[in-house]
C-alpha cells in the first residue's frame, strides 16, 4: 500500500521534473539574480553596495517614467483595439460560419504565424515606408501630393501590435463564444431584446472569462514586445523594453536594466490585477478559458 503510493509519487515527480527544471532554471533563478542586481549600486571598480539607487534613478529621470507610462498606455490601447477587431472575427467563426467555413476562417487567422514575426513586420515596413506601396498608392489616388512617411508614428506601432496579437485574442474568444448556447440569444430576442442589449447582457457576461484571458495574454505580449515597436516606430517608438535593452547591451548597466525589468514585471502584474478587479473575474476562471 505504502509502496504503491510512493511509486505514484515518484512517477508524478518524474513527469513534473522537466517543467520544474524549466521554471527553476529559466524563470526563477534569473529573476533572483536580477532582483539582487537591481538592489545594488556600483561605488567603485568591482565594489557594490546594497541600495535603491536604480529605482531612484527611474523616478528622478523623467524620460524613464515617461517611456514607462507611454508603454503602458499604448499597450492598453493596443489590447483594446485588438479586442474590438477580434470580437467580430471570433463571432463569425464561432456562430455564423457553418462547418468547414469556420475552420477555414480560423486557418486564415493562423496562416500569418507561419512566417516569423520579423519578416511580417518587415512586410509592414515595405508597405508603409515613404517609398513604399501605400504612400505611392495615396499619391496615385490624389489623396496626398507627395509620398508620406507612414512609419515611425504611434498609429503605425498600434497597427503592428494589433496585427501581431490578433490570434491570441481570437482563440480564447472563439472558445468562449462557442460555448454560448444559441437558445440564450434567441430567448433574449424573444423576450424583446435588441442586438445591443443581447450583446451587453448575454454575450459579454458569458464571454467575460474569454475576453479577460485574451486581454491578459495580448497585454503581456504587447508590453513585452521589442521587435514591433522598434521596427515600426524607430527612434520615436520609446518602448520600455528598448530602455531595458539599452541598459543591458549599450550602457552595460545591468543594475539599471534589472531594475527596469522588475518595474515592467510590476506594471504588468498590477494592470492584470486591476483588469481582473474591474471586470469582476476570478483568475482561475480566466485561465480555464485560455
Amino acid at each position: 500500500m505504502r509502496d504503491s503510493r510512493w511509486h505514484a509519487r515518484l512517477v508524478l515527480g518524474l513527469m513534473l521534473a522537466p517543467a520544474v527544471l524549466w521554471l527553476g532554471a529559466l524563470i526563477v533563478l534569473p529573476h533572483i539574480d536580477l532582483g539582487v542586481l537591481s538592489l545594488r549600486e556600483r561605488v567603485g571598480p568591482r565594489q557594490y553596495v546594497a541600495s535603491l539607487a536604480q529605482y531612484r534613478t527611474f523616478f528622478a529621470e523623467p524620460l524613464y517614467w515617461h517611456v514607462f507610462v507611454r508603454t503602458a498606455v499604448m499597450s492598453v490601447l493596443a489590447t483594446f483595439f485588438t479586442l474590438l477587431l477580434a470580437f467580430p472575427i471570433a463571432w463569425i467563426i464561432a456562430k455564423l460560419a457553418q462547418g468547414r467555413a469556420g475552420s477555414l476562417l480560423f486557418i486564415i487567422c493562423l496562416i500569418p504565424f507561419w512566417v516569423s514575426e520579423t519578416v511580417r513586420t518587415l512586410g509592414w515596413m515595405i508597405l508603409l515606408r515613404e517609398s513604399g506601396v501605400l504612400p505611392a498608392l495615396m499619391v496615385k489616388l490624389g489623396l496626398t501630393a507627395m509620398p508620406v512617411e507612414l512609419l515611425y508614428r504611434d498609429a503605425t506601432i498600434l497597427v503592428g501590435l494589433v496585427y501581431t496579437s490578433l490570434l491570441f485574442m481570437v482563440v480564447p474568444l472563439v472558445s468562449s463564444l462557442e460555448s454560448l448556447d444559441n437558445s440564450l440569444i434567441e430567448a433574449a430576442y424573444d423576450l424583446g431584446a435588441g442586438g445591443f442589449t443581447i450583446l451587453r447582457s448575454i454575450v459579454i457576461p458569458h464571454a467575460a472569462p474569454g475576453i479577460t484571458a485574451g486581454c491578459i495574454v495580448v497585454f503581456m505580449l504587447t508590453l513585452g514586445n521589442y521587435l514591433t515597436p522598434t521596427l515600426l516606430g524607430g527612434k520615436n517608438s520609446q518602448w520600455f523594453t528598448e530602455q531595458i535593452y539599452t541598459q543591458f547591451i549599450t550602457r552595460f548597466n545591468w543594475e539599471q536594466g534589472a531594475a527596469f525589468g522588475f518595474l515592467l514585471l510590476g506594471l504588468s502584474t498590477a494592470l492584470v490585477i486591476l483588469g481582473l478587479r474591474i471586470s469582476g473575474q476570478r483568475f482561475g476562471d480566466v485561465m480555464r478559458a485560455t
Partner: protein
Amino acid sequence: MVKRFADHTAVDALSFSVARGSFFSILGPSGCGKTTLLRMIAGFIAPDSGDIAIGGSSMRGVAPNRRPVNMVFQQLALFPMMSVGENVAFGLARRGIARAERVKRSNAMLERVGLGGAAHKRVDELSGGQRQRVAIARSLVLEPTLLLLDEPLGALDLKLREHMKIELKQLQAAFGTTFVYITHDQSEALVLSDHVGVMSRGRFEQLGTPQDLYYRPQTPFVAGFVGANNRIEGRATAVAGVLAEVTSADGWVVHALKSGTIAVGDAVEAFVRPEVAILARSAAELPAAQPRHAGEVQSVLFDGANSAVLLQEAQTRREFRIALPQTGQFSDLKPLEKVAFSFDPSRAVCFAARTDA
C-alpha cells in the same frame, strides 16, 4: 386567431387556427416539422409563403422581439449570468418599465408559479421543475397573446414530467393565455390539450380534440401514433355496410369499421386498440356476437394499471397486444398458455393503406 402557412419544405401547405385562451398541442415524431412551425410562429424563421396572424394582425416582417408571442425553449434557456428575479424581469426591462415596477411584477409572477422568495437565487441553485416554472414565468410576465412551448418537459425525469404536466395545465387555466405546445409525447398532448394537431412530414394529419384523435382517428398515421394500437395490414376481402373484412397476407381474417371509402380488393390497414380486445381462457367465455380469435401468450407486460399481454395469433404467429383487465383474473397468466380473444369490430378501424408507406 388564424395562422396560415404554405409551401415550406419542412412545413408544407398547412393551415390552422387556435382559439384564444385554449391549449393547443402539435404532436408529431421528431423531424416532422413541428419545431420549424413553432419557430415560424415565434418569428425566428420566415415562412416562404403564407402568413401568420396573431390576434387578427399579420406577423409578416415582424421581428421576434416585436411579436406578442413568447417562447419557452426546449432547454429552457434561462440566463445563467442573472438571478431568478432578473431572468423574470428581463423582458419587462426591455419594455422600459421602471425598476421598482419590474421587481414588483416579477416577484408577483414568481409568487404565482409557487416560487415566491426565490428571486435572489441563482439559476443553477434551482431544481429542474423550478427552472421550468421560472422559464414559464419569464414569458408569462410579459402577458403575451400566445405562449409557445417547445417540448419543455423533455429534459425532466419521468416523475417530475408527470407532475409538471398537471402544473402546466393548471397554469394555463389560471392565466387564460393561449398555449401552443409542441411535443412528441402523445400522453403530454392528450392530457394537456383542448385541441391537438397531429403532424407528420410537414402536414397536419388530423386536427381535433384528444378524444377525437384517440377514438376517431382519420388516418392510419394518427391511429398508429396516438395511443397503443395493433396494426393488421392486408386486403379488404368483403365489405358489408359500415364494416369491412380484412384478410392479412398470411391469412388472418379480422373485421373493422371502414374509414373512408374502401372497396373489395383494396390494400388496407386495420387498427385494434389493446383495451378494445377481450381476453378469455376459453372461447366460450367471449361475447357471442364477436368474431373469435385464438392465441398463445408470448409475454406478460406488467405495468400496474397499464399491464398488457402480448399474444401470438394462433394461425399466423402475428403479435397482438391486449390490455389486461384490473380484476386480477389473469394475474396468473403464463407464457405459452393458450387463450382466446375477440373484439367489437365497430370499435376497430380500417383505412385504405398509405400509398407512400
